């Protein structure tokens, strides 16, 4: 199950201010994750060089985490503007998730939930993801 993790989850998880976001990040080596460069730029903007290096090293060491450099196709971005994400910066993230075949965007950004209708993926927060999808899948596998 491929997921996309929004910048707010990285901030909450790395700062330890939200237990579910922190758990989500600690599971990164066991998750299949796609992250657009835009999200990492948001996360690293206020970090120093050594911290940025450490974060990229952690992401590289997680075997199924991919940082995607290529720009999201413009027509998909337009599609997500039409689906309700009026800010193109948000539409890029929605379009990215569909483009990369992500099943979930994990985010606390209410704009995704409130504005987006008819997307190819589901937007859930980290607690919902862990409770309903991740732990449930683990239980099914056992």
């Amino acid at each position, binding site marked *: 199950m491929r997921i996309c993790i929004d*910048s*707010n989850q990285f*901030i*909450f998880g*790395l*700062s*330890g*201010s*939200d237990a579910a976001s922190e758990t989500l*990040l*600690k599971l*990164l*080596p*066991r998750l299949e994750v796609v992250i657009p460069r*835009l999200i990492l*730029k*948001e996360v690293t*903007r*206020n*970090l*120093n060089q*050594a*911290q940025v290096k*450490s*974060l990229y*090293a*952690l992401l590289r*060491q*997680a075997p199924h985490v991919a940082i995607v450099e290529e*720009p999201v196709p*413009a027509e998909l*971005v*337009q599609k997500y503007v039409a689906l309700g994400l009026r*800010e*193109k*910066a*948000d539409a*890029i993230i929605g379009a990215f998730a569909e483009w990369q075949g992500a099943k979930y965007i994990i985010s*606390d*950004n*209410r*704009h995704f939930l409130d504005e987006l209708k008819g997307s190819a993926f589901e937007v859930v927060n980290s607690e919902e993801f862990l409770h309903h999808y991740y732990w449930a899948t683990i239980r099914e596998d056992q």
Partner: protein
Amino acid sequence: MSEEITWKVPENLYRELVWAQKELEYPNLADFILQAVQRRLAEIKYEAWQRNFRQLQQQIHASGGFGLGKTKEEVITNLRKVRQQIFDEEYAHLY
């Protein structure tokens, strides 16, 4: 490529290994040990990753955090501004 090793083990450990191999229905002892070692290596890698993650958390905390606000709402609002800023600077010309 593979390396051949000779491994001497205490007799009681050997007996336990053979018992476990049969119990778990592995075709032979070598396969069973190979998988056990691979699993342990994966655990060690995972533990090392967790340690590095905690170290990064401590470094960020020590340097004053992300500076994006105290509450969740403040952080999300400020992150939206950051997203828009990066979009205007680096992506707007593409879309």
